[in-house]
Structure formats: structure tokens, C-alpha cells
């Protein structure tokens, strides 16, 4: 059956290529959309998870960009039993030199030490430390961020695209730039501490803050939900478009090959056997289409990551679970797209073969 299927695909070359293109384009779209969305979520999650067991943000805010937490709380939090350290961070975005938007991080001293320096030193007030990616594009001793100028103190490296393509200021400088004390506080607690109790005690310090474990914060962060839900919705549309394309091309193919399926019926092939033959043909195209799409997607993601214009912000990775998820979804799409035309083909009445002769 496999040999016949390969011959049939070769004989119907144009249709085969069209189905292959529909499949591989829609699978590539799903890979790229999902990988990029997951890349954004993973990058920001890594920044949040890199330091701290608890995250404190302003209560009832939609995004950490709008969060403002008073750093005056830090000494009070440090006094709570079980708390080992508290660090502050400001997350913002601003034009840097000619670049229209760059991630700007304001960090307390302890938090800053978690970044690996590759040149120079950590920044003091009035200074800025550049991520490796952005440093390769802005090779100056002084740079302007917003309407202020800062001396470049050093360069740091990070595996996270958001960080490598960003800049770090002191908490004070970032606070002046964005007009806030801090976006969030990271709290480290001693091992075997009662985390729930610590959360309650921190919450009791101010009504305007929200405290969550880092894992809980990442899981419930609205922006992540919006990004992943949007990506899922767009992926679904891409898959549906692929499904419709396959179904329509297959329908035309089956119409062209109706006498072939009719003769199989007279030869005693069951409807199931004919349906299976068509599904095997489509599955062969799916295998080739899926792996082509995988290769193309990996290539595009690599180009996007290395593109200097994107500063490494787009850092999509196709993980094995993602590849398996897309494989299952696209396989279902292919089967669904081919199934209705295949069932239609299996139902072709062989009497039509006789009637064609009678009409001639």
C-alpha cells in the first residue's frame, strides 16, 4: 500500500506539492507563533525566578510595568523571622540612543551582583551597564537613556534575550527615570521556613502590596496568560486554514481520481480500505511536511535570535514537548482534512463506470 501511495503522490505531483505547502506553511506558522510566545514568557519568567522565593508587587495592577512598591518596606520585611534578604527591581522600557525601545532594569546592589560582568564594573549612580547584545550595537562611553546621559561602566552577559538586549541602572537612577521606588521586591527566605506565615506578615505591613510565591506569581501573571492564549488562538486559526486547504485540495484530487476509486470498489476493495489508502497518501505528505516545517522553523528562530535589529528579544525555542504538541495537533488536522474527501471517495458508486460507458 505504501508503494502504491508513493506512486499515486508522484503521479498527482501538483496536488501533492499544494498539500505539502499547505501543511508545512501552517505547521511552520504554529511553531513560530508558539515558540516565540513561549520564548517571551520563559525569558521573563527566568528573570523573575532567578532570585527570590517571594515576589512583592503593587496590589491590583494589571502589569509589573505599572507596579510601584515603596522601598521603605525593605527594612521592615528584613525584620520578619525567616527572611534572609530583600532586593528591589524596577522594570521599564525606554529609548536608548537611536534604538526606539530597550528594556531598562533598575537594581538594588544585591540583585545586581547576580549578573555576570564580562567587561568593566557594576554601575554606580550616573552610570549604566549594558547587556552584551546591546553593547555590540552601541559602542560609546556615554549613552542617553530617555533625556538623560549615563557613563557606560561595563558589560554583562545573560542567556536571556530580554536581559542581554537591555541595560542596568542603579535603583536610584531607574527610580528617577520611571518616577517610582521599585516595580517589585524579591524576598529570599531561610530553608524550612513557614512561607505562608511570612506572606501573611509581609501583607500585614501594607494594604497596597500583593505577595506571592515566585512560582504562583509566574503561573498567574496576566500578561503571560494573554500572550499564551493569543498564541494558542492564532495557532488554532493557522491549523484551521491548513485543514481547509487540505480538505479542498483533496476534494478536487478525489474528483479527478473518481474512476480509480470506482474500479477499486468493483475489485472488491471495501470502503474502509479505500479510505485508508487515501489517508496513507496524506500521512506521507504530513511526515515530510512536519519535518520540513520543523527545520524551517528552527532556521527562522535562529535568524530572529541573531538579527541585530531585534536585540535578541525574540528568543523562541522549539522544545520536545512543543514539537510533540504541534505534531499531534497537525496530525489531527491532516487526518480531519483528508477524512471527509476520503470517505466521499470510498462511497463512489462503481455503477458510474458503467453509466459512463452507456453514455459514450
Amino acid at each position, binding site marked *: 500500500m505504501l508503494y502504491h501511495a508513493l506512486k499515486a503522490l508522484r503521479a498527482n505531483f501538483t496536488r501533492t506539492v499544494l498539500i505539502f505547502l499547505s501543511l508545512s506553511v501552517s505547521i511552520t506558522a504554529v511553531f513560530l507563533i508558539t515558540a516565540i510566545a513561549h520564548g517571551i514568557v520563559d525569558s521573563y519568567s527566568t528573570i523573575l525566578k532567578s532570585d527570590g522565593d517571594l515576589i512583592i508587587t503593587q496590589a491590583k495592577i494589571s502589569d509589573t510595568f505599572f507596579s510601584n512598591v515603596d522601598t521603605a518596606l525593605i527594612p521592615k520585611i528584613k525584620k520578619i523571622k525567616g527572611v534572609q534578604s530583600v532586593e528591589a527591581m524596577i522594570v521599564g522600557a525606554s529609548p536608548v540612543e537611536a534604538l526606539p525601545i530597550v528594556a531598562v532594569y533598575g537594581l538594588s546592589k544585591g540583585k545586581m551582583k547576580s549578573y555576570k560582568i564580562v567587561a568593566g564594573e557594576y554601575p554606580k549612580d550616573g552610570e549604566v551597564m549594558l547587556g552584551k547584545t546591546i553593547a555590540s550595537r552601541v559602542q560609546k562611553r556615554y549613552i542617553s537613556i530617555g533625556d538623560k546621559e549615563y557613563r557606560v561602566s561595563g558589560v554583562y552577559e545573560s542567556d536571556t534575550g530580554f536581559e542581554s538586549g537591555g541595560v542596568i541602572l542603579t535603583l536610584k537612577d531607574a527610580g528617577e527615570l520611571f518616577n517610582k521606588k521599585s516595580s517589585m521586591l524579591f524576598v529570599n527566605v531561610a530553608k524550612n521556613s513557614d512561607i505562608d506565615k511570612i506572606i501573611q506578615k509581609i501583607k500585614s505591613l501594607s494594604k497596597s502590596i500583593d505577595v506571592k510565591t515566585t512560582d504562583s506569581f509566574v503561573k498567574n501573571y496576566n500578561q503571560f496568560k494573554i500572550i499564551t492564549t493569543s498564541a494558542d488562538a492564532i495557532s488554532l486559526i493557522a491549523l484551521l486554514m491548513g485543514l481547509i486547504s487540505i480538505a479542498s485540495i483533496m476534494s478536487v484530487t478525489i474528483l479527478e481520481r473518481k474512476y*480509480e476509486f470506482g474500479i477499486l470498489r468493483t*475489485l*472488491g476493495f471495501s470502503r474502509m480500505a479505500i479510505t485508508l489508502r487515501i489517508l496513507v497518501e496524506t500521512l506521507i505528505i504530513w511526515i515530510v511536511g512536519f519535518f520540513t516545517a520543523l527545520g524551517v522553523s528552527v532556521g527562522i528562530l535562529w535568524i530572529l535570535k541573531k538579527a541585530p535589529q531585534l536585540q535578541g528579544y525574540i528568543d523562541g525555542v522549539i522544545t520536545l514537548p512543543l514539537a510533540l504538541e504541534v505534531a499531534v495537533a497537525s496530525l489531527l488536522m491532516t487526518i480531519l482534512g483528508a477524512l471527509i474527501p476520503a470517505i466521499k471517495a470510498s462511497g463512489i458508486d462503481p*455503477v458510474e*463506470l458503467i453509466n459512463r*460507458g452507456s453514455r459514450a
Partner: protein
Amino acid sequence: MIKAKNIIHHYGQDIALDGVSLYINRGEFVSLVGESGSGKSTLLSILSTLLKPSGGEVVIDGKKIDEISNIDRFRKEYIGFVFQFHYLIPYLSIYENVQLASISKNKDEIFLLLERLGIADIANKSADAISGGQRQRASIARAVINRPKILFADEPTGNLDMKNSQKVFEMLREFGNEGMTIVTATHDKELAKISDRVISLKDGQIE
């Protein structure tokens, strides 16, 4: 072998068959003749299990065809069919077309049959690369590869010249002589004389 009792068939308001009854013996070569629209192709479709009649009953080898549980299997084992058009699968070779229909898939058996029909030398060619007469012989090979008990042929010479038409009917005659029941529909009364019996149809009835 084949018993048809009071077969009625209509396409919408048009009556194609109007109470046809017949009996065909095992190994008999029967030709259904008649003008276009006489109902011979419809009768052939019904006798060969491809078309369900509007009324009446068909019994093959003692089995009522509307009571056969696996009609596909029955068709594969009992029935061979040759059409006016060869309907060979264009992307397969002649050998592969015959092999597709074969239950045993035995290569020697297929080549023996192709040799017998004089088309073994073109076994690896596709249907597009051979003549009309060779195509029809290939479609006969495909129809008889499983040694069916009955071979139905609908206007098998409709697209052939006189010489090739004669050859096709002689081949059918040979298979008939070996015990295969042959039922053919043709408008050529001269060719029909090769068969054991001729049944004439007119306006959906046996004349």
C-alpha cells in the same frame, strides 16, 4: 448459477427494467444485446451486485445477494468485471494493476496470465504507453486473476476495432470453456454469436 426473478429498476420516473427474470447456468456464456437504453447495462450492474434493484431478487450460487453480509469480499472472490473503458490505474504498471486485484499476489501466476493474454512483454509499461487492444486485455487480466466464478463485461469491445473486438470475445470464450460463467452486454449482434446464448432486451424487458 445466476437467478434473477422479476427484476424492476427505475431511475426516478424512468423505468429501466420492467420485470426481468432469467437463469444463467454455471459455465454458460451469455450475451445481453439491445439498443442503447434497452436496459442491458442496468441489468448487468444488478446481476454483478454493483446496483441494488428497485424490486425483485437476484440469487448467485444459491446466495441471495441482498443477504450477503460482506459484499466486498464476495465481489472479490466471485466476480470479475470488464468495462467499456479499461480503467487501468494510470500511475501503476500493467503488472501492478493486475497485482492490485490479485488475492494471492503470486508473481508467477500473474505473469502466466499476462503471457496467456499476450501482454507479458509490456508488463512494466503504464496504461498510457500501450495500445487500446492491449489495455483491454490488461483489464481482462485484472478481472480474471482471482479465477472468479462469473465474469461480467459491459461493452468490452466498445472502443476497439473489429480485429481486437474479435480477439477479446475469443478470450472470453476461452475463459468460458474453462468453466467461468460469462455475462456480457453488447450492441454488436455479430460478436454476440460467439456466446452460448443471446438474450435480447427492449424497453427494459426480455424480447
